[in-house]
């Protein structure tokens, strides 16, 4: 089955961790992920600036490793990211901000990517709230 997965919560929310485990289980079960889409506070799940205490599960780091390992299409909504200070190099330069916290493997793009993914996938699965 083809899944599109949308994440609406930051890395410290249990729902972001559940989304990660769901995505890992989907691939392990032989399914396909057509796209991961990070929206609302979900953009923080992609931030490279999160520092997790050493004895805790580092959700953003696991997201990053998971996306990289499987070369997944992982899109962070640009409008949601800008208003929350999650910027790649290009946007940081455009708005003259000091911090870049969205390195590869993420793509910054628009909401059209969510709709396209939903159209392509058999199932759209959303993770938000706590």
């Amino acid at each position, binding site marked *: 089955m083809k899944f599109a997965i*949308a994440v609406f919560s930051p890395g410290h929310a249990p729902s972001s961790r559940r989304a990660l485990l769901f995505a890992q289980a989907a691939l392990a079960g032989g399914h396909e992920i057509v796209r991961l889409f990070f*929206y609302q506070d979900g953009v923080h799940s992609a931030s490279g600036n999160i520092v997790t205490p050493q004895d805790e599960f580092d959700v953003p780091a696991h997201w990053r490793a998971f996306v990289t390992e499987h070369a997944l299409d992982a899109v962070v909504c640009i409008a*949601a990211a800008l208003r929350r200070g999650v910027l790649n190099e290009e946007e940081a330069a455009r708005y003259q901000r000091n911090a870049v916290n969205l390195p590869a493997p993420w793509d910054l793009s*628009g*909401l059209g990517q969510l*709709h396209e993914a*939903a*159209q392509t996938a058999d199932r*759209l699965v959303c993770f938000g709230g706590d």
Partner: protein
Amino acid sequence: MAKSLLIISRQAPWAGPSAREALDIALAGGAFDLPLGMLFLDDGVFQLAPGQQPGQVQQKNLAANLQALPMFGVEELFAAGSSLQERGLPADSLSLPVKVLDDAALAALIERFDQVVTL
């Protein structure tokens, strides 16, 4: 055929960016001519209250953007009757032409759409 998407908006317009971000999903999908519906549920029905003055709390007016939904091809607009009732909003006072649904009709609505996003 394109899959239909129901966007369920559950947050008041003054409660952070959720209401606007739900609307943005609808407007973006409308631009692609996708079959979309929007349901205002729980505190989301406050988005439909008439005579709001969002400037008083340093917010932009969401109502103008909501009015654009039919122009973007999003004509299936719904509100939960029980949510309106709980919050004392009369169905005939709303700022958008929504169809008011009882709880049984809500379940049927969600069942009718291929996909659902709740914000």
